[in-house]
């Protein structure tokens, strides 16, 4: 019995190792890093080692100090860029690798289990397979590696681009106005800008601002004075000819509102307000509705 279990149990392990070795680079979706790990480590020692800033503090003139400062800042930024690339690769690679290897491993365990005799073997393989499925469930629940990852990475890039632009602008300043310690504070900001918590916080802030501005836009429309603008009269007469609401047309208008790019905002405003508000935003909506052949409002 034991002799049958051992080789059977080894098969999925072999599949695991084979897939792991052959699939890593393509799973990450990145080109190979051109610099060797040794070179990258050398750059880290040069620009962040204990004597990295020695030449700066030894420079005798302001001009020489600025030259060394600029060189050090670019060098330190290069190391930070490498570290960020590593983080990005890890974030992208982890999600892909766990998912694909997990799928293949489950398939191979189930396959081996199906063709291998003995209740003992089947039970052991089923347990291993169940463990992998469980692990995959945990990973798939992790939003970092699924749907939100592209948004987080995009926000990281935007945050880093902003800090990077500030550093480039500051490099034009003389050393007296932008000494190395000040630049190092900005470099710390550059590192933080590429972090997941900073990115998530920025995304949340953006969503809150847009929600608030939408709510403010609706509040402006809560107390309005009846508008007799041509667009208001035309739309009002179409929706409620002779003062009687046309059910078919109001349904068509509601569907049209739902299809608009600013639907979330428009669906927070009653139809009577959209039709009769003197607000320029509502005038624009009315003009859009009147011009849309899908509604077919006569001129």
């Amino acid at each position, binding site marked *: 019995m034991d002799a049958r279990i051992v080789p059977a149990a080894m098969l999925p392990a072999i599949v695991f190792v084979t897939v792991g070795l052959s699939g890593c680079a393509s799973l990450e979706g990145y080109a190979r890093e051109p610099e060797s790990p040794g070179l990258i480590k050398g750059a880290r020692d040069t620009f962040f080692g204990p004597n990295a800033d020695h030449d700066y503090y030894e420079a005798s003139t302001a001009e020489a100090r600025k030259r060394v400062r600029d060189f050090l800042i670019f060098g330190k930024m290069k190391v930070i860029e490498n570290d960020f690339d590593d983080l990005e690769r890890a974030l992208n690679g982890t999600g892909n690798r766990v998912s694909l290897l997990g799928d293949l491993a489950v398939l191979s365990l189930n396959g081996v289990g199906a063709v291998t005799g003995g209740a003992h073997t089947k039970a052991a393989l089923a347990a291993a397979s169940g463990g992998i499925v469980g692990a995959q469930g945990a990973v798939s629940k992790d939003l970092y590696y699924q749907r939100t990852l592209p948004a987080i990475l995009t926000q990281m890039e935007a945050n880093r681009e902003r800090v990077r632009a500030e550093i480039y602008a500051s490099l034009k300043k003389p050393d007296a106005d932008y000494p190395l310690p000040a630049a190092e504070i900005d470099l710390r900001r550059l590192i933080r800008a590429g972090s997941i918590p900073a990115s998530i916080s920025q995304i949340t802030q953006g969503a809150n601002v847009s929600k608030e501005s939408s709510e403010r836009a609706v509040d402006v429309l809560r107390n309005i004075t009846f508008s007799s603008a041509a667009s208001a009269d035309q739309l009002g007469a179409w929706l409620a000819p002779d003062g009687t609401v046309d059910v078919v047309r109001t349904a068509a208008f509601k569907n049209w509102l739902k299809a608009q790019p600013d639907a979330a905002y428009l669906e927070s405003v009653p139809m*009577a307000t959209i039709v009769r508000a003197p607000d320029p935003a509502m005038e624009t909506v009315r003009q859009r509705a009147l011009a849309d052949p899908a509604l077919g409002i006569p001129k």
Partner: protein
Amino acid sequence: MVCGTFTVKGVPKGKLDETTGLFKANDPKPTSVTSKKEDDGSYTVTAVFPKCPDETEHSPD
């Protein structure tokens, strides 16, 4: 989703039915639509919709 209170002032008598009718045709439906005649002969129409969710920061009900 529409929530809270909306008011239209200066509604001419001839447009009163249209204004109240369009408020009533909304989804969700208002809990009440009332009209009040003003001194200048126009009307003020007030539609009250379900209360805004608590997290809505600007919702004068």
